């Protein structure tokens, strides 16, 4: 407490008061002084540890949200409208995604989805509250996506992670824009379109969307409406069941000026690989932005490349080498204790990919905390260490 000249200072007192809530300070704003002060009495807990028993949205350690609306988009996709809890930052950029955790059978499952709403969004009928929305498409093997599309009731509390991602539309938008999307790849682009619509800054925007059949098109009506309202916006639909995959060579006839456009592409990995190659060959890589969706699937294969996020090191491992050993083999300071799965000293967060619990074969994935001494890589994965 105190300032440089040795006496008391307002800032010093404030810092002292805020200290107990420091770990969640970025979400607190002015309230942190109060939280910090109360936390001195409720230590080792935070006031929120009590408050969130009354209202789950007042969570101490993490953002929470409440699902306020579930809207069917197509047969296998739905939009979830979520009211974020206290501390959510609404100044994200269109195109970013959020992490969302859902409680199923007592366990929180964690996934990332693109936001489909423009920043600072509210809709009538929800009391003027600021909301966010995501669109989820059920994947054949996707346990959580299926659950979200077909079974999640309004009122459900979800965990949220702050919006992130570099697949964003710059503001003001470039003069000429091209969007290439396929399937649920439409979702981040929809957020960009809605933001342009809201800000009334539709420049010259061309959009090509691929879907299997007309019934599979998410947000088809809305795209058409935007098309009708904004002379600068052209959207074209390509149905792959009828015409096969869109051939990039056709770009020259569809959008002859594609080389001049700033392009945002989102869809299956194969499509993005082709696009990247095409743009590279044309010497236009600098104008291309792509977003790769991690496909929600079961972990495949044994072993892989383990990346240690914070140290930037990597290790190639087989399906029998524990993540702990993998880290140690490349000189990463891994926390450890018993090395046999009983002490929880070695727990780290998986920031991407899949790992497998050797003891029982269970699969763990992005967002899960795992015991590295008894977990192995199931495909490529990244650990937060």
């Amino acid at each position, binding site marked *: 407490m105190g300032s440089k000249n040795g006496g008391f200072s307002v800032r010093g007192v404030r810092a002292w008061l805020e200290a107990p809530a420091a770990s969640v300070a970025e979400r607190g704003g002015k309230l942190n002084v109060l939280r910090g002060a109360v936390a*001195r*009495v409720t*230590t*080792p*807990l935070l006031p929120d*540890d*009590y408050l*969130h*028993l009354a209202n789950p949205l007042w*969570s*101490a*350690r*993490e953002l929470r949200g409440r699902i306020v609306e579930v809207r069917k988009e197509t047969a296998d996709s739905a939009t979830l409208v979520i009211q974020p809890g206290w501390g959510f930052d609404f100044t994200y950029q269109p195109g970013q995604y959020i992490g969302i*955790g859902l*409680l199923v*059978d*007592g*366990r*929180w*499952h*964690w996934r990332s989805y693109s936001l489909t709403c423009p920043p600072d969004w509210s809709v009538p009928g929800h009391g003027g509250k600021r909301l966010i929305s995501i669109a989820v498409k059920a994947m054949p093997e996707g346990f959580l996506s299926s659950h979200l599309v077909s079974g999640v009731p309004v009122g459900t509390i979800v*965990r949220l992670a702050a919006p992130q991602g570099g697949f964003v539309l710059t503001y003001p938008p470039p003069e000429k824009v091209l969007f290439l999307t396929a399937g649920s790849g439409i979702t981040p682009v929809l957020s960009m379109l809605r933001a342009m619509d809201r800000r009334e800054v539709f420049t010259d925007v061309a959009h090509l969307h691929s879907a299997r059949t007309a019934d599979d098109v998410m947000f088809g009506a809305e795209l058409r409406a935007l098309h009708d309202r904004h002379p600068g916006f052209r959207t074209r639909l390509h149905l792959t069941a009828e015409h096969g995959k869109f051939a990039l060579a056709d770009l020259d006839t569809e959008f002859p000026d594609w080389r001049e456009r700033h392009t945002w592409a989102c869809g299956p990995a194969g499509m993005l690989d082709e696009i990247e190659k095409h743009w590279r060959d044309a010497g236009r890589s600098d104008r291309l932005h792509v977003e790769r969706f991690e496909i929600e699937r079961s972990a495949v294969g044994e072993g892989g490349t383990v990346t240690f996020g914070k140290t930037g090191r990597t290790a190639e491992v087989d399906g029998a080498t524990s993540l702990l050993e993998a880290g140690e083999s490349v000189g990463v300071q891994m926390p450890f*204790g*018993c090395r*046999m*799965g*009983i*002490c*929880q*000293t070695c*727990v780290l967060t998986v920031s991407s990919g899949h790992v497998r619990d050797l*003891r*029982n074969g*269970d699969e763990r994935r992005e*967002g*899960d*905390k795992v*015991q590295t001494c008894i977990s192995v890589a199931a495909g490529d994965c990244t650990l937060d260490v």
Partner: protein
Amino acid sequence: MAITDIKAYAHLTAADIETLGQELDSIRRSVELSRGERDAKYIRRAIAAQRGLEVAGRAALFGSRNRWAWLAGTALLSVAKIIENMELGHNVSHGQWDWMNDPEIHSTSWEWDMTGPSSQWRRAHNYSHHTYTNVLGKDEDLGFGILRMTRDEPWRPIHLVQPLANLLLAATFEWGIALHDWSIEKELSGTPPRQLMSQPNREFGRKISRQVAKDYLLYPALTGPAFKQTLKANAMANLVRNLWAYAVIFCGHFPDGAEKFTVEQLENETPGEWYLRQMLGSANFQAGPAMAFMSGNLCYQIEHHLFPDLPSNRYPEIAVRVRELADKYDLPYTTGSLGKQYLLAFRTIHKLAIPDRFLKATADNAPETSSERKFAGITLPSLGGVTLPGAESTHWLRVDPETGKRRGLRSALHEAKVVLQEKARQEKEMLREAKAALKEKAEHERQLLHGAKLALQGRARQEQAALREKALWDKPFRFLRRAR
């Protein structure tokens, strides 16, 4: 010497121990597979109940100048602190609820209402204690560095104060634990002891000052005029929690039958042997649902040590299956009432306070520590009259041909008890007979001595008489000589 070879001690073959391990693994797997909503609800309710009790207790203490409000507040707070310590802090920190993936109920982030920082406790407890359970010199929980709980530890004069140290430890348990964990943390992390502002020191200092300030300054101050009463109530609640936590821990680890091990056992220990060590090294106590809850289900200490990271609410059902395994492999399953288990631990504490020369049993067959050597050189009836060789050999392990039952440690212990008792009785009898013979001989000699004495005395008397006579004759002449 505590157990150095658990295979020999358990009277099981290596293959038996391996299958036992597999069966325990399958218990673990089935519990893991069936974890779900029901369990999640259990812990969330426990948390809500604990928070509720604590808030109610704190609220009641605002009126603590009234005696009844003081009592109610103190009682509520004590119960809240016990639940917070046992069912929440201990179990969450073990990772029992990590499977829920909930950052608010996770071993990596949970901080408890005890003096020491959770993280330091986790290192000392989850790692040191649970990996090296009851291994002398490796598991610092074996007597917490101040009590001598096995004869394998040489007696020192300081142990004389053990009864007092025990009382002190019980009353200030959270401080004992905090200091204990702090020193282990420093040791494990290789922090130089003289470095004042080291990470463990700062963490420790921060936590204890917050805890002390909260209970003995801030809450009392909040209740204004009831400052003194609230302070007393908080101290009392901490004391109650300390005593209870202490009792639960001691009943889980130090009653007779909870065995100790030497580092030799650790060398090349197989997973099955690890399980077996946990089973033989821990003890349960009988408890109904309420007491089980208040002990954080640590009345199922054996199950907890086998599966420290499985949800505590599943221990009762796990216990049923573990007992079945104990029966099947003929292994002891140490349990008893809370009172009995504590008294056994209490007896050990006091017994081992005094030097070994006053103790009867050896470190191989004492009630609180035994070893495979206990069986060496004795003949167990179930083995058909074969005398057990040294601990190294296990060729006599067998399955009963008639019943098909495995002969394991439990039978061996029972029979050894009878055999050893009989052996002791015989030895005593022999001793008694030898003593009687000696006594007889002594009596005989005494008599001989007496006779000789009498004879001597007679002779002395005769000689005296002769001398006297001679003196009478001499007397007149002496008179004459003088007169001359």
